[in-house]
């Protein structure tokens, strides 16, 4: 997860913790865009008896800005309802769950079950909004427990034909597919070493506290997440419903971020069933646009505030973190002598204001979008907003041979042009912070040789070739927490 447990408050609230956001032109259907927002990070597959679920008391939203002002023009809202179908049972299921059935279906062994409503909200310039319910009581598949409880998981709950947790909708001119449920976490990062004073195992022989170089370990190998996935026609997301063909047009760019909100007042154990209840307006508690921003750029004292603010605040209140990131300075301390050019550059360029940012390249990548003219046939800037949004240029088609280094690897269809499931955002952002992207804005700068080599040495599971793209969730029976599986990079 590129934003897992990244702030003090949200680390205590996994159900509302946004962990990853992906946005890409669908490779198997380039007339559509796929948006995936992951929540409930670091799920151990064998996490029974109360397996992981979305929050009934959380408003999940995937937000889209299509006119470049950093404010949502469109939002897709997800609201969940949980039922217990089998009174008196302590079990998630009383027998094998062999099909996707509605709650309360006679004969079903499925006890604890979730459904959700999907609503599209369009925000108009006059301050009004229009809500369109795209689906009601859509079924969430069960968690992948094991061969006895959830046999033949993928064919049972996401079959290529028949009743599937992938739901198609077509309502009032809005069409597409939606999925909400457990999937394998596709993010890959060596958390154990990265947060041990910035250690990158393949380079730890050069660390301030050295040890022999080693292969990276993917801390998320074998972990699951809960995914909200949407696939919709491009023209249903863009400015004025156009389908842009010119990748250098600002109208080709949409900005995406996900938020989770809770009601402002929470009363503990207040319902007759002993559940907490919420009252008052929905109040944002989690936000995610570009990967790793709140995790690795925003100071601890501001992380909770950042999660509660809209992206339009990034250009003022939080600008300094993007313009002069601490991580760049730490690279020089933690890897002495490895980044002399970066060290020299930072000494002379450490401004924290929009008029003179120390790192205009990072501001462009993460806050404003990359303007036209920097990279031929490419832009991710859609307007004047300084806002952390995952910016996707919908006029750039999917790559036939994706490079996990995205634009840094010469693949214009990859991060920071949106984010695909397989993009190695840890390596990309490390290299950018180490100066690999500075020549885009300062042609006189020569990056250190190490800047283009940085990686934590990990890789992730293969993505599926079709929606919802994230792989089958790991089975609790096959992946007990004490026996890590697939952890080598």
């Amino acid at each position: 997860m590129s934003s897992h447990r990244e702030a003090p408050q949200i680390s205590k609230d996994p159900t509302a913790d946004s962990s990853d956001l992906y946005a890409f032109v669908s490779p198997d259907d380039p007339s559509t865009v796929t948006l995936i927002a992951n929540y409930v990070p670091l799920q151990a597959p064998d996490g029974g008896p109360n397996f992981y679920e979305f929050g009934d008391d959380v408003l999940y939203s995937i937000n889209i800005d299509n006119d470049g002002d950093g404010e949502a023009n469109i939002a897709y809202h997800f609201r969940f309802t949980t039922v217990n179908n089998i009174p008196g049972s302590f079990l998630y299921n009383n027998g094998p769950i062999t099909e996707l059935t509605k709650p309360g279906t006679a004969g079903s062994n499925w006890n604890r079950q979730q459904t959700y409503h999907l609503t599209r909200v369009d925000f108009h310039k006059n301050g009004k909004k229009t809500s369109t319910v795209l689906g009601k009581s859509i079924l969430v598949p069960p968690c992948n427990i094991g061969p006895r409880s959830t046999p033949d998981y993928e064919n049972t709950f996401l079959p290529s034909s028949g009743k599937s947790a992938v739901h198609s909708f077509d309502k009032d001119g809005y069409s597409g597919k939606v999925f909400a449920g457990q999937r394998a976490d596709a993010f890959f990062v060596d958390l154990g070493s990265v947060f041990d004073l910035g250690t990158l195992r393949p380079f730890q022989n050069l660390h301030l506290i050295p040890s022999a170089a080693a292969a990276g370990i993917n801390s998320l190998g074998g972990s699951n997440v809960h995914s909200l996935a949407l696939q919709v026609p491009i023209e249903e997301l863009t400015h004025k419903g156009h389908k842009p063909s010119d990748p250098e047009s600002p109208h080709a760019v949409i900005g995406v971020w996900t938020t989770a909100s809770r009601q402002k007042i929470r009363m503990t154990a207040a319902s007759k069933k002993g559940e907490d209840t919420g009252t008052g307006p929905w109040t944002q508690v989690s936000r995610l646009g570009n990967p790793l921003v709140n995790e690795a750029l925003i100071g601890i004292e501001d992380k909770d505030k950042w999660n509660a603010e809209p992206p339009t605040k990034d250009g003022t209140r939080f600008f300094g973190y993007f313009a002069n990131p601490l991580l760049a300075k730490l690279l020089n301390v933690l890897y002495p002598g490895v980044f002399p050019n970066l060290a020299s550059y930072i000494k002379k360029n450490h401004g924290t204001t929009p008029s003179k940012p120390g790192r205009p390249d990072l501001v462009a990548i993460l806050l404003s979008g990359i303007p036209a003219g920097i990279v031929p046939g490419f832009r991710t800037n859609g307007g004047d907003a300084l806002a952390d949004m995952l910016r996707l240029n919908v006029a750039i088609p999917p790559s036939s041979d994706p490079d996990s280094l995205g634009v840094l690897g010469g693949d214009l269809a990859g991060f920071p042009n949106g984010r695909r499931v397989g993009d190695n955002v840890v390596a990309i952002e490390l290299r950018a912070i180490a100066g690999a992207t500075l020549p885009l804005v300062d042609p006189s700068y020569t990056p250190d040789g190490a800047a283009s080599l940085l990686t934590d040495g990990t890789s992730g599971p293969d993505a599926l070739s079709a929606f919802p793209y994230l792989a089958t969730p790991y089975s609790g029976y096959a992946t007990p927490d004490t026996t890590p599986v697939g952890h080598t990079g």
Partner: protein
Amino acid sequence: MAGLSRRNFLSRGSMTVVAAGVAGSMPAIATTATSAAPEASVALEEGSALEGPLIAQVTNLQQGAISLFSGEQEFQIFDRDLAAKLFNAIK
């Protein structure tokens, strides 16, 4: 503010003031003995009933600023008398 008025809020017959937050200490909620409560000075409209929690937060005692939470909404009123009554109720 459909369905919510100061009269509803002041009545003690059908609800408990759940959270009157005052900056500083918050003692355990003391039970208000309804049998000893004085007659309400403001009448309720016929058929008035709470449909869910109604929560009040005094945000500024001197100004009488009170935030009210009901359903998915938040309302702000200014009533120094009401704020003073709430504050005195918890002393």
